[in-house]
């Protein structure tokens, strides 16, 4: 038994009381789960905390996993749900300071002109963050799972318990929103051409 063992084997070993099997599961999926969460919440510290929470949740619930769906779907579901919950909490906090946020938003768009002139100097990851931040939680999750994780709409729909058509629409609208954000920041003219 090692990190490359099948999920079924590792899960069976864990259910039989082998704690090491869980460590193998963590090592096998930690990078994918962390990167998924990182793209969702856009902050390393938050992603670190949520990744730990996800695996702790997995540890406590793995005995109840019946294998009806793929294990990685089950794990992604936990990760996406935790990320969406985190974003919802964060949004509520931001709403409380709405005036402060509006002022910041104004400044950020105001400084967009300077930003567009120095796009090459500006870290692209920061632009990416700003663009993703404009997305609602579910659209963000669908976009990341579809674009970065290359999951099919069927898999995404199973993770989020939504229809396949809905996932397709979410992905398209997410791209449109991000595109309009980039357009607003004049990214297309300076970066893409």
């Amino acid at each position, binding site marked *: 038994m090692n990190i490359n063992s099948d999920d079924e084997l590792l899960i069976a070993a864990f259910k039989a009381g082998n704690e090491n099997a869980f460590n193998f599961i963590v090592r096998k999926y930690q990078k994918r789960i*962390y990167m998924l969460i990182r793209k969702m919440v856009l902050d390393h510290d938050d992603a670190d905390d949520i990744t730990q929470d996800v695996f702790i949740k997995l*540890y*406590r619930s793995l005995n109840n996993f019946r294998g009806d769906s793929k294990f990685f779907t089950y794990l992604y579901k936990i990760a996406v749900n935790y990320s969406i919950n985190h974003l919802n909490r964060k949004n509520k906090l931001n709403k409380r300071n709405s005036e402060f946020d509006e002022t910041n938003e104004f400044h950020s768009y105001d400084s967009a002109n300077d930003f567009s002139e120095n796009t090459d100097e500006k870290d692209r990851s920061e*632009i*990416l963050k700003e663009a993703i931040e404009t997305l609602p939680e579910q659209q963000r999750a669908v976009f990341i799972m579809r*674009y970065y994780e290359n999951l099919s709409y069927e898999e995404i729909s199973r993770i989020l318990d939504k229809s396949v058509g809905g996932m397709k629409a979410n992905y398209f609208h997410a*791209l449109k929103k991000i*595109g309009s954000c980039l357009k607003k920041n004049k990214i297309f003219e300076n*970066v893409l051409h």
Partner: protein
Amino acid sequence: MENKSKDYSREDLMQSIPDFINGEISDIGLSNAVRNLIETDNDFKNEYDEINKTLSFFTKAEFPEPPDNFFNNLPVRINERIKPNIPLTENSGVFQYFPKVWKIIIPALTVILIAAFFLFRQENTDPVLTKSENTSPVQERNNSTNSGSENQIEKKDNFFTGSDKSLTDPGITEKETNSNTELNQKTKNTNIRKHEVISDQKSNNLISDNTTFENENKSEDVSVYENNDTDIAGTDFADIFDIDESNEIEDTGEIEIEESELLNSGESDVNLQNEFRELSPSDQQEILNVLKETKI
């Protein structure tokens, strides 16, 4: 603007643009329909261009990697957060079978039982010491003095007739003698101090009960006293004197202190002393014997 394909709505075709760009459409009919619409419909083409630019931007922009060793430390930190839960199932021992209440009650009862056992045992192993400390002669005397003059008169009557249990009970005298032998020099000193206090109190008693003594002595026939001398000495006092010589020495030493204090205790004591000297030698001896035995 018309939809080129009758099988797919415009909205379906538009939502398929990202997959068309990435070449991820497996349905050839859908792929052809999208391609045709891009070539013939300008608005659709604009949508296609915008999405293509957006996706191109993402291919150039990447998320930063986490710090070095992050993925080496992550399992350790996860285990650290999980581990506190593990001992609950593995190492909770016998107590895991008990409800939470018993986890508190059982240790508490154990402590109480052990404490009670030691206290009980301590009382049993040193009863004389506890008796001498708890019910000291001073307290006993105080109790007797507080009980009133009538009881005192009765006691004295009983004493002279030999029916006073406290004086004639050999058990009590034995306990007292044992206590004297077991106590060290310090406790002897404290006993002497106690007897000093007792003697002070007794002197007061003698003063206050002076009239009763006198009345009794005067009212009763002297011959009766003389006749009873032998009886008292032969019967009741025989038990009282049934003690070790060493204790007797100690007792006499203490009484000497008492007598000297009695004699040096003020004007009333001088009167008492004078009265004592007026008595016949046999009476004096008898009173002294009585004082010796009662440790007054």
